[in-house]
């Protein structure tokens, strides 16, 4: 019986570690993107890209480790399915952070100065959505009855992000920005906006996991 709970404790520790690494990845992305908007592509951004890639890989490794551990006699099948589904869905956000920084560094995308304030708003909005969904995860792992209050703001942030994205893309296409740059910028906007889209999907999943445990 003690082995029974020891495995559960190990899984719980790994999950906590996974979310710590995911936070680290997104925080590094936030800082890197801010410095990019301020200074453009510089060594600092390239270093951050390496760090983000390393911590995103660590998050992936942890997720695989959790998956393996869960199938070795710990947790009920539905808990396993819910937690693995949550991690899989959540993991798209660190992946996006890595994709966006890599995209900027490799494609050398430059944000024209007049669009930087809106890019900054877009970033803040998506990081807010991320932090809100993290709050929802913490509540799910502590007291699922309180999940609802943390889920609603994610939805609001996702809608706000959509509005910023649409306005920003419209103003870029209305400007005299080079056509190929417009396409790159639009792609960059959409990838950043994907963070809040994913946050919303994770939030819905969290809500369902909590509801499933109400009898």
């Amino acid at each position, binding site marked *: 019986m003690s082995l029974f709970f020891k495995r559960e404790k190990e899984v719980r520790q790994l999950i906590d570690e996974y979310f710590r690494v995911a936070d680290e990845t997104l925080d590094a992305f936030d800082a890197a993107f801010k410095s990019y908007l301020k200074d453009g592509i510089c060594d600092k951004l390239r270093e951050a890209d390496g760090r983000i890639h390393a911590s995103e890989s660590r998050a992936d490794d942890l997720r695989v480790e959790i998956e393996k551990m869960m199938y070795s006699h710990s947790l009920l099948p539905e808990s396993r399915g819910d937690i693995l589904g949550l991690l899989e869905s959540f993991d798209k956000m660190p992946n996006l952070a890595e994709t966006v920084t890599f995209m900027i560094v490799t494609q050398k995308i430059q944000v024209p100065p007049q669009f930087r304030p809106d890019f900054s708003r877009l970033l803040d909005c998506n990081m807010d959505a991320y932090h809100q969904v993290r709050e929802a995860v913490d509540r799910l792992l502590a007291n*699922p009855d309180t999940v609802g209050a943390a889920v609603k703001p994610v939805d609001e942030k996702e809608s706000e992000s959509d509005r910023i994205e649409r306005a920003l893309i419209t103003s870029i296409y209305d400007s005299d920005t080079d056509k190929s740059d417009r396409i790159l910028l639009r792609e960059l906007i959409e990838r950043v906006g994907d963070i809040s889209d994913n946050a919303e999907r994770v939030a819905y999943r969290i809500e369902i996991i909590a509801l499933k*445990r109400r009898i």
Partner: protein
Amino acid sequence: MWQIISGIYMGWALGSNDAANVFGTAVSSRMLRFWTAASLCAVFALIGALVEGGAGMKTYSALSSTSLDTAFLVGLGAALTVTGMTSLRLPVSTSQAVVGALIAIGTAPVLVGTATTANVQLDVLGKVVACWVGTPIGALVAAVVLYVVIGQLMNRLALNVFQYDRLLRMAQIVAGSYGAYALGANNVANVTGPFTGPGMLSVPAACLVGGLAIAAGSLTFSRGVMMTVGRGLVKLDAYSAFIVILAEGVTVHAYAVLGVPVSTSQAVVGGVLGIGIVKGARTVNRRTLRNILLAWISTPTVSFLVTLAGYVVAHEVGWL
């Protein structure tokens, strides 16, 4: 006392089949290792048989009296019925097979002309048949009540995912152990009940032998059935599966106290049906319900005919 071998075989078959009804979910979901589940089942079934197994034996003694030789025929007839019908994938219940065999032994002397009246107590038979019908219904009601009451208590605890998981895993082990206890208490009469009486086993000795036979069955041959039955139950959510096992345990235990051996499989179906009522979903198909109705009629009929044939042959060769 070699005749008891048919009862021991019956106990072994019962243990290997019915262990699945109490620990199938835990094993097939890889929550418990097979050996842990089989050991818990063996231990608790033996305890159940020793502590509360006597009542069912008294019922069978009251239904029809047996000698050592006719008790052997009862065990053999019931065991052949269960094995044969299981091989043909027909619905079957051990308790119903034993009752059919006992009725055959009670009526066979009239058929072969050695007695003028049948030795079957119809009032006892009526009670037994009423309990067969009451088993799925009782489990259904128990499942509905337990689902609502325990559910409300769990909601109040506001458990997180891990706490909820841990509580349900513990609950499944406790419910499984209780189900095994109820299985031993209720079904041991099917194993060695016909062997109790003057010149045969005492009730405590019969409980011990029967309990050990059930334990041996769960330890040696229950893995396959556990996986099959368990996977069926795993389709339910963990809480519902726990309620089904608990409802089955409560129902079968209640009938053990009343002294009527009943079918654990039919109690499981009743429990699953109860979950469907609470959740407003169809959890049991018509075929399963039809199988239960069929088992109530076909199992005792086939067992009656097989045992009767055995009696006639034994009489003709001069053994009886």
